[in-house]
């Protein structure tokens, strides 16, 4: 068995075993991704004969056609707008609510907090039909808000919990010092709590951004016109249209996941910490 301790400085044999095992898994993870990216450069015929290797001729046009068309960019912009609105609203609404839960005792606060925590227990899918009818009756169908508002609402439980725990752990002395200086709650929130909560803002922001960026079922149900489609809807439609032309679908998939991969490698520390620590702390 491998064990983290005795082998802090592993023997060469252990090292070999580790590298072989880890590399096999890494290859299994990467091969689908690499073949997808490379497949986008191939012709359909070559995809059939040589799906693994490097393309014999690099068909850049598969990629450039997508990049010079407006479809790809429109979907990216739609996803970005929806994600940005979701993140912004989630942060504002949940930080404010969490602040009151952390600092103000009022009648029913425990009950109200538990009320929000119900939201942690079930996915949006359970209420998707009534949600659709509600959004339709509000006239928000086929608009960004029809996706954003339910997303924010379903993210509130987790975000409020994370913010509340963070605010509560800020040292109490801050609070007293501030109030001696005549600072009220709202100014305390704005000038002290929020700036100090920057790590938690990042965590909640990352969780809600990734959730919104990758979300499929809500946009699928709320958006009708293709001009409003987010990218997960877009690739499904694209794949439906060019179903037999896998090389085009592959190029499109590659381009749509490329931003995620780039951002992930740039900000990997924050993203990994945000997505896992966020889960653990709640």
């Amino acid at each position: 068995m491998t064990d983290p301790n005795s082998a802090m400085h592993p023997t060469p044999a252990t090292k070999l075993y580790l590298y072989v095992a880890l590399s096999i898994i890494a290859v299994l993870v990467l091969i689908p991704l690499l073949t997808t990216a490379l497949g986008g450069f191939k012709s359909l015929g070559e995809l059939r004969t040589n799906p693994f290797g490097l393309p014999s001729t690099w068909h850049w046009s598969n990629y450039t056609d997508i990049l010079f068309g407006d479809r790809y960019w429109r979907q990216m912009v739609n996803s970005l707008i929806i994600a940005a609105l979701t993140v912004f609203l989630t942060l504002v609404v949940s930080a404010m609510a969490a602040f009151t839960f952390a600092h103000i005792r009022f009648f029913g606060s425990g009950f109200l907090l538990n009320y929000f925590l119900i939201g942690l227990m079930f996915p949006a899918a359970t209420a998707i039909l009534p949600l659709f009818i509600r959004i339709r009756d509000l006239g928000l169908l086929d608009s960004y808000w029809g996706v954003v508002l339910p997303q924010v609402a379903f993210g509130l439980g987790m975000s409020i919990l994370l913010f509340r725990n963070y605010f509560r752990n800020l040292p109490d002395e801050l609070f007293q010092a501030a109030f001696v200086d005549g600072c009220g709650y709202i100014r305390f929130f704005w000038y002290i709590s929020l700036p100090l909560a920057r790590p938690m803002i990042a965590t909640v922001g990352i969780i809600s951004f990734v959730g919104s960026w990758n979300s499929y079922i809500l946009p699928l149900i709320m958006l009708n016109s293709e001009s409003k489609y987010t990218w997960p809807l877009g690739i499904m439609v694209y794949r439906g249209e060019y179903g037999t032309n896998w090389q085009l679908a592959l190029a499109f998939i590659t381009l749509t996941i490329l931003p995620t991969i780039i951002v992930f490698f740039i900000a990997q520390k924050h993203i990994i910490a945000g997505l896992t620590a966020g889960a653990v702390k709640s």
Partner: protein
Amino acid sequence: MTELSAPSTLLPSAGRARTVRSMSPLARGRLPVLLLFLPPAILLFTIFVILPMGEAAWYSLYRWNGYGSPQQYVGLRNFQVLFNNAAFTQALWNNGTIILVSILIQIPLAIWLAMMLAHRIAGVVVFRLIFFLPYVLADVAAGLIWRFVYDGDYGLFAALSAFLGIATPYVLADRDLAIYAVLAVVVWKYFGFHMMLFIAGLQSIDKSILEAAEIDGATGWQKFRHITLPLLGSTVRLSIFFAVIGSLQLFDMIMPLTAGGPSNSTQTMVTFLYTYGVTRMQVGLGSAVGVVLFVICVTLAFGYKRIFMRND
């Protein structure tokens, strides 16, 4: 909080909540904060989470196409129809299988990798990054990528079987194999997340215990079995919890892979809800699925927390 007592006498304490904090001078700003900071969250949450959930319970008792208001009361007929529907029972079965595989394959794999990555060897960070990468990709993208991998004409499976000289299996079109193909993608996509949980869990284990065991002559396996694994207990329970909750709502990944087919063999509760409830606008039936899913989620969440996560 004791330091607050002196200046607090200057102000009348507000209302019924006679806690220490409420008597502080800051109390004067409490009401505006409550009126300003809470309502947005309460409104959003009530309108888009709680009410729809309640409505799902209500609609589930009706036969309704979503227009006008529900009129045709059918009692529990929708639930009856649901549990007599072969596709739905298959969906329940599949959800169960997904949970089981997540726990039995994914979590041991994640622990094994986390243990390996705890060694001080070069490249640990890179491996960790690679293993986590699938988790940040959208389920839909992962599903489409694997749809290509499994493609019997162009994909990697086609090439692999040609290389091995066997007939190309059309895995996703095979009623018996499709669900396993889906399960493989689930593991591929999510093991990295669980691995990160275990890496964090391992870091919190006190190294001196393991050293003491080593001095006493414990073998690697003994140390793992009797020290590391018990100390990882809370992480294992957390990891199982996420695996269960995630498996129950699996939808995004199934749609590009099989959309629940062939002949409903890869249906999950949510794909069933979408296929039979949403696309056919059978609001009553779809809401009934929602209610069943809700009851399962809440029961599991409560039960699990009560039984297994009491001390965490």
